[in-house]
C-alpha cells in the first residue's frame, strides 16, 4: 500500500503544504486521556455523468469535491467536524470541534506519532476511470445503446441511457499510527426504456458496472443491457394485475438477493445490535434460517461495486460468514462497535464521504449456492409467484418487517411459469423469512453492479446476490384478492 499512500499524500496533503508532522499536531489537539480513538479522513473525488434521451446526449456534468473529516471517539460518543479546505488552520479548528464530546481540552503538546503503512490486497486498478475512454467515445457508446434498444421492437418509444464514473483518492490517518490509502474507481451504465402499445406504457430498466474503467463496457455487455431493458418493458406490456396474499414465491438468481440485504443484512449491522435495537440482537448461535442457508458479506471480491481494499477506517475488508447452515454466526462491525462489543472489526466501517460519520455497512452480501436445479424449484410450486427482477427495498430493523418490490414477475401454475404479472411489493418478517426457505438452487449469481444502499441519510455502493430459491410463504402485495 506504500505506493498508494505516497500518491494519496501527493494528491491530498501536498497541495495545502501539509506533511505528517502537521498531522501529529492535529492529533495532539484531539487526544485527551479519555479519547479512545481518533482519525482523519482525507478525500478527493472527481466524478462525471452523461445522459442520453431522445436519441441524443443532451447533458453532462462534472464535479470535484475534496475535504477532510476529523473524528474523535470516547466510549459510545463520536464527534465529527470537517472542512472542504485541506489546510492546517481548518484541520486544527475541526479537531477542536470534534473533541467537544470528550469534555476536556487537549494538552496541545505535540507528540510524534509513529506512522506505519497499512497493508491490504488491491482489489481494483487505481487509474482514473474518467480518462479511460474519450468523451467522444462515451457519447457514441450511449448512442449505440439507444439504437440497440430501439431496434428490438417498434413498440420501444423512449430510451434513456446514462453513464457515470467516479475517481476517488482516500487517505486515512489514525491516532494509533496506522496510515492507509485507497484509490477507488467506480463506473456504471444504466438503460431505461418505455414501450407503448394500444395506449398502454410500461418500462424496463437495467444496467451494470463496478470498480473498473469504462473499458469494462464492451459492446457485447452494453448492447446486452439495451436488449435486456427492452425485453423487460415488452414483458410488462403483457403483464396482468398481480395477486394479493400469502403464497409460495420463487426468487430468481442475482439481483433478487436484495431479499438478503433487507431481510437480514441491515439487522446484522453491529451498531443496531450493540444498541439492542435490532430484531437480531443477542441471537448469535441461534437458528435464524433453514439449514440450507449460508449467507456471507464479502468485501474482497475483485472489481465489484460493493468491494473495498480497505474500509473507511483503514481496516482490510474480509469475507464474513453471517449465517452458516441456518445458524447466526456474526454481525458486521466497524471499529467503534467492534470495540464496544468486544469483537474484532470486520472491515465494514463505511462513510458516504468525509462529511459523514462512519458506521457498519454491507459490502457484497449473498447466499451460497445449494444443489437444486432451478427448474425443479419452479416445478415444486403448484400455485405461486416467480419474481426475477426487483427495484428497491426497505426494512424496519426493530420490528424486522421488510419489503422489496418486484419489477418483473410471473405466476407459477401447476409447476410451470405462467403469464407475466405487474410488479408488486413483497413484505415479510426478517427473523423468520429465511426459515421458510425450503429449496436453494445451484445457480448463484451476483447482481450486475448498480446497487446503492441508504442508511441514516448516507448512500454507499453495494452488491447483492443469491441462487434461485423457494420461500414457502411470503405476503405478495398485489391488487387481485
Amino acid at each position, binding site marked *: 500500500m506504500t505506493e498508494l499512500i505516497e500518491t494519496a499524500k501527493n494528491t491530498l496533503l501536498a497541495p495545502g503544504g501539509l506533511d505528517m508532522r502537521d498531522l501529529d499536531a492535529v492529533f495532539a489537539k484531539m487526544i485527551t486521556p479519555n479519547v479512545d480513538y481518533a482519525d482523519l479522513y482525507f478525500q478527493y473525488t472527481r466524478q462525471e455523468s452523461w445522459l442520453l434521451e431522445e436519441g441524443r446526449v443532451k447533458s453532462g456534468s462534472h464535479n470535484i469535491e475534496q475535504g477532510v473529516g476529523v473524528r474523535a471517539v470516547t466510549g459510545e460518543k463520536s464527534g465529527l*467536524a470537517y472542512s472542504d*479546505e485541506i489546510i492546517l488552520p481548518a484541520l486544527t479548528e475541526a479537531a477542536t470541534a470534534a473533541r467537544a464530546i470528550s469534555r476536556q481540552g487537549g494538552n496541545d503538546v505535540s507528540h510524534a506519532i509513529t506512522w506505519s503503512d497499512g497493508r491490504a490486497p488491491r482489489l481494483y486498478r487505481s487509474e482514473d476511470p474518467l480518462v479511460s475512454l474519450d468523451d467522444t467515445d462515451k457519447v457514441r457508446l450511449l448512442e449505440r445503446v439507444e439504437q440497440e434498444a430501439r431496434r428490438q421492437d417498434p413498440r420501444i418509444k423512449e430510451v434513456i441511457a446514462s453513464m457515470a464514473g467516479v475517481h476517488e483518492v482516500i487517505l486515512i490517518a489514525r491516532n494509533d499510527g496506522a496510515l492507509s490509502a485507497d484509490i477507488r474507481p467506480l463506473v456504471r451504465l444504466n438503460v431505461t426504456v418505455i414501450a407503448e402499445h394500444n395506449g398502454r406504457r410500461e418500462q424496463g430498466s437495467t444496467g451494470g458496472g463496478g470498480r473498473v474503467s469504462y473499458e469494462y463496457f464492451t459492446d457485447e455487455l452494453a448492447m446486452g443491457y439495451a436488449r435486456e431493458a427492452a425485453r423487460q418493458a415488452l414483458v410488462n406490456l403483457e403483464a396482468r394485475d398481480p395477486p394479493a396474499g400469502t403464497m409460495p414465491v420463487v426468487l430468481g438468481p442475482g439481483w433478487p438477493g436484495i431479499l438478503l440485504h433487507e431481510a437480514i443484512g441491515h439487522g446484522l449491522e453491529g451498531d443496531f445490535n450493540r444498541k439492542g435495537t435490532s430484531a437480531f440482537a443477542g441471537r448469535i448461535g441461534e437458528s435464524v434460517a433453514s439449514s440450507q442457508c449460508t449467507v456471507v458479506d464479502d468485501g474482497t471480491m475483485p472489481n465489484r461495486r460493493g468491494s473495498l481494499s480497505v474500509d473507511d477506517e483503514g481496516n482490510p475488508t474480509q469475507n464474513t460468514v453471517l449465517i452458516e447452515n441456518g445458524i447466526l454466526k456474526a454481525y458486521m462491525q466497524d471499529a467503534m462497535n467492534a470495540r464496544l462489543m468486544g469483537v474484532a472489526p470486520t472491515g465494514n466501517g463505511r462513510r458516504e464521504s468525509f462529511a459523514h460519520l462512519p458506521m457498519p455497512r454491507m459490502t457484497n452480501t449473498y447466499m451460497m449456492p445449494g444443489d437444486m436445479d432451478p427448474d425443479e424449484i419452479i416445478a415444486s410450486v403448484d400455485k405461486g409467484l416467480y419474481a426475477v427482477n426487483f427495484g428497491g427495498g426497505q426494512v424496519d430493523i426493530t420490528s424486522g*418487517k421488510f419489503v422489496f418490490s418486484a419489477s418483473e414477475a410471473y405466476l407459477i401454475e401447476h409447476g410451470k411459469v405462467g403469464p407475466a404479472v405487474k*410488479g408488486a411489493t413483497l*413484505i415479510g418478517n426478517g427473523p423468520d423469512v429465511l426459515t421458510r426457505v425450503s429449496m436453494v438452487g445451484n445457480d448463484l449469481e451476483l447482481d450486475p453492479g448498480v446497487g446503492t444502499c441508504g442508511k441514516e441519510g448516507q448512500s454507499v455502493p453495494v452488491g447483492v446476490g443469491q441462487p434461485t430459491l423457494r420461500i414457502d410463504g411470503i405476503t405478495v402485495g398485489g391488487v387481485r384478492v
Partner: protein
Amino acid sequence: MSATDPLDEQTGNRQLTEVARRALDEATGRGATEADAAVSRSQGFSVTVRLGDVETVEYNRDKNLVVNVYFGHRSGSASTSDFSPRAVADTVRAACSIAKYTAEDECAGLADRDRLATEIPELDLEHPWELALDDAIDLARECEHRAREVDPRITNSEGATISTHGGTEAYANTHGFEGLVSGTRHSVSCAVIGEQDGLMQRDFWYSATRDPAELESPRHVGDAAARRTLRRLGARQITTREAPVLFEAPVAASLLSHFSAAARGSSLYRKASFLLDQLGQPVFPAFVRIHEQPHLPKAVGSAPYDNEGVATVNRDLVTDGVLQSYVLDSYSARKLGMQTTGNAGGLRNLTIESGGLDLAGLLKEMDTGLLVTELIGFGVNVVTGDYSRGAAGFWVEHGEIQYPVEEITIAGNLKDMFQRIAEVGNDVDTRGNIRSGSILLENLTIAGA
C-alpha cells in the same frame, strides 16, 4: 456556535455573489453564449443524546458552486466545493468541455428574460438559533428523558436529536439576474423502542421549523415519540381483503408527492407519466383543490424565485378536481410547447385544501377500515400509476381503533386512488414541503395473511 455567524455573514454573502459573477465572466470569456451559476454555503450542527448521554456531535460547514454553460444550444454543467479563482476557472472549463460533446438541443438555455423575477418578496425565512452546544445537549436530554419516562414498556432508545442549520444561496445568470436568499432550519426529533411479549416496535416524532421559537417543546416531541411507539405494541397481520384506507397526515403527503412526480415536465416529455394528456381532465373528485403557495412566510418550502430565477407564484394545479397545470421548468416547458410554471427545483409548499373533519371525525366517517401510519418501500411506478407499498397502522371498526396492524401491503393504481379520495382532514402536517391533512380513500386492496 450558532447556525449563522453574523460577523461573517455580510462578507460571506458578498463572496457568494462575487464567485457567481466570476464564474459567469469566465464562461462568457470562454465563448459561452449563456451561463448561470448557483453558489451556496451552509453551516450548523446537530447533537444526539441516547440513553441520557451524548452519542454524536456533528458540525456541518458546506459550500458549493454549480455552473451551467450554453454554447448556442449545447450545454454543459460542472460543480466544485472550492471557491478559489483557479478552481472556479477549472470548473467553468470542465463545463465548457462537456458542451463540446453534447448534442444540439433547441430547448436548452436560460429562462426567457421576461419570466425572471423582478421583485423579490421578503419571506421571513431566516431565524438563527443562538444555541450553545451544551444547551442543545440539555434540550436533547430533556426530550429523550420525557420519552423514556412515559411508560415502562419503553425499553430502549435510538436517541433524541437537536439540529440547527442555516444557509445562503446566490443565483446569477447572463440575462443579468442576481439574487440571494438566506434561510434557517431547526429540528427536534426523537425515536424510541417499546417491547411487549419479547417483540419490539419503534416509532418517532419530530418538529421542524425555520424559526426556533415555533418548534414544539422537546418534552412534547419526546412524549409524542413514546406514545406513537406504545400504540404499535402487539401489532399483528390481518387477512387479505379490500377495505377503505385512511392515510394519517404525515404519510398522506406521500400521495401528493406521487402526483407531483407524475405532473413534472421531465416525466411528461419523456412520456413516463400516468398523467400524460390529462390536462383539463378530472383527475380527482370535484371537491379537491391542490395548489402551490411559494410565498408563505416562514414555510419550509418557500422561495421568492425558482432555480432559474423565474418568479414563483401562488397557483392552482387542481381546481374542482380538474388538472389545471403541469410542473414545469423552462426546458420541459419548451419541450412541451408551454410556458415555465416557475418550478425549476420543484413545487413549493404544495397544499391540498382541507375539509372540515379532524382525525377522529375521519375515523368515524371511515367506520371500518385501515388507518395507515407508516409506509415503507418504493413500490410506486410513475409511468403506469401502479402502487404497492408495505404498511403499518391500525384496524378500525365503528370509528374506533381496535388494534395495531403490521406486515401488510396496500395496493392499487394511483389514477383510481386519486379518484377514490373521499375526505381530506384539517389535521394538516406543516413540517415539510407538502401540506396535507389525513386523506381517506375508498376501497384499496390490503394483502396480508
